[in-house]
């Protein structure tokens, strides 16, 4: 599995925001790979840099406030971090698509659903307006929207939140992207609708071999949909592992804390809502690059070493990395 060439390889990504109080290191040296067809989940507390990571990949950061200060974003070997805006327009919506957390406001209120889907097809596939319009109806059907022909002529305000997120998915998959970035796509939806959207995404993945970067707070969802998990804390990757391994043997105390109440793996009863566990304390400010383990002030296992040096990422088994001087012992009795 590890020997397939990665589709997307994020290496040592550094994304910074200019603010009145100085530069904020929102993403500080994050690396991970996504292979074709693989689903990688990105988890972590609010504000840890998940959205900034995904917007960096899309190069959709606010132009004047944010910059990619270092690192590489390799899509099939091509570095998107330094690609021209011209080139990025060919990549967006075509090679990499994105769906967002806010289905109610992510569609344009003054354009019909059909138009908004067709537009992408005209842009990237060079279809005529008519061909694109017809394909848009097929796409609506493929995201299981009933009466797609009628719906295509409607405006977003005539659709429910779940329907709108389906439309967003239809737009995202219109040009068969190699990678779909889903930034908390179900957070704003009712539990039953969440399950339907997840089923739809799982189904699409099965049909298309599309890779996915799935950002979420929901551990139930991670267990259900992801192959591999990247855990972020305060702008840094602090652990990553294949999903089963992470659930069985979380090594970083932060991950262990998050997974305090582990959902039973495989119990994919749709709509599980185990939120990440509350960990006492708060996320540190990201004003300066880390000079020690940023989790140390909240960590039950921290020592003087943790407060003096940044722990490097160290191997914890096949595909399993954790940035901790004192990783959690292997409770299941396996070897580290």
């Amino acid at each position: 599995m590890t020997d397939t060439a990665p589709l997307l390889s994020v290496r040592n990504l550094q994304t910074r925001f200019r603010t009145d109080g100085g530069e904020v290191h929102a993403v500080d040296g994050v690396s991970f790979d996504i292979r074709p067809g693989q689903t990688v989940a990105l988890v972590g507390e609010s504000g840890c840099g998940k959205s900034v990571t995904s917007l960096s990949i899309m190069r959709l950061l606010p132009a004047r406030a944010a910059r990619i200060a270092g690192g590489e974003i390799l899509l099939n070997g091509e570095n998107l971090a330094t690609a021209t805006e011209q080139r990025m327009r060919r990549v967006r919506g075509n090679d990499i698509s994105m769906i967002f957390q806010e289905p109610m406001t992510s569609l344009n209120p003054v354009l019909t659903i059909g138009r908004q889907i067709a537009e992408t097809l005209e842009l990237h596939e060079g279809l005529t307006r008519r061909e694109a319009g017809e394909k848009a109806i097929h796409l609506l059907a493929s995201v299981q929207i009933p009466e797609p022909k009628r719906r295509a002529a409607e405006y977003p305000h005539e659709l429910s939140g779940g329907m709108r997120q389906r439309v967003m998915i239809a737009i995202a998959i219109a040009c068969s992207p190699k990678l779909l970035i889903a930034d908390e796509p179900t957070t704003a939806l009712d539990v039953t609708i969440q399950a339907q959207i997840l089923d739809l995404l799982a189904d699409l993945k099965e049909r298309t071999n599309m890779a996915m970067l799935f950002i979420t707070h929901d551990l139930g969802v991670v267990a259900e949909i992801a192959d591999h998990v990247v855990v972020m804390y305060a702008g840094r990757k602090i652990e990553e592992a294949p999903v089963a391994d992470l659930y069985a043997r979380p090594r970083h105390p932060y991950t262990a804390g998050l997974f305090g109440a582990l959902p039973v793996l495989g119990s994919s009863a749709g709509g599980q809502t185990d939120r990440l566990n509350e960990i006492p304390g708060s996320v540190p400010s990201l004003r300066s690059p880390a000079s020690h383990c940023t989790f140390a002030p909240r960590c039950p296992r921290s020592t003087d070493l943790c407060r003096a040096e940044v722990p490097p990422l160290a191997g914890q088994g096949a595909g399993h990395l954790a940035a901790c001087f004192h990783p959690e012992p292997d409770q299941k009795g396996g070897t580290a």
Partner: protein
Amino acid sequence: MLSYILRRLAATIPTLLIVSLFIFSLLYIGGGDPAAMLAGGEASAVEVEKIRETLGLNDPYLSRYMDWLTAALQGDLGQSLYSQKPVTELILQRVEPTAMLTVTTMIVVLVLSIPLGILAAWQAGRATDRAVMIFAVVGFSVPIFVVAYVGIYFFSVQWRLLPVQGYTSPFEDFPDFLGHMVLPSLALGLTLSALVARITRASMLEVLSQHYIRTARAKGLGDRPMLLRHALKNAAVPIVTVIGLAVATLIGGVVVTETVFAIPGVGRLTVDAILRRDFPVIQGVLLVFSFVYVLVNLAVDLSYSLFDPRIRYR
């Protein structure tokens, strides 16, 4: 939709009644005796009284108002005290230059302000944006007659590129018409362009921060379709509103502009009528302006549904 229009029109009737009563009363608020004015300085009291009688100035106030209104509704706005011609005819003769000036001015405003506003919002915070904002502030503060006289001095007197004053009908000589319209429309349009550009910028900025703009960019759209297809239509309602207001303020500006450029339009008619205390003409013009104003407002309201499918009229 049709029933909505009818109901909206019906709702303007009370407004128009109040306005018309006010306009009618001007004759008495304004002081001065029209009969005496018309008779001239040397007329005897008997002659003045005779004129007053023929004009019906001795009848009770409300009954005169009712008569005046009934006649006005039938298109009869009375007779000019000065030229003795029907006011309706006088106004109709002057409508064309004013209508043409309004149209050319609105073209100037639209062509200038909307692209500038979009450009400024797109380049927010950069030099282009600052330049547009400076234009907006300066353009808004310079009085029409200053622009007019500076324009006449350079373009007409110094460089002899444009005619100084006057008007030619587009149906007679179109190039000459355009030549005559350039300076008046620029003078009249500058202030309004500044206003509309500001509102366009503000409205576009608001829209550009919306999630659906991020979606448009995530699709791979370039700036042009993002701005024109996705943003502008969403930003349209405040822009159309302010354009409606601009047309309304234009009515005031027309009076100044037509005077400076000696354009024989309704504005000039108004000025002349005021100087001569020709009350039937003043009343007639004001009545027509009020009616146009109400219609413009209605048109603006109705246009909202063109831009935003969430707005429906029932």
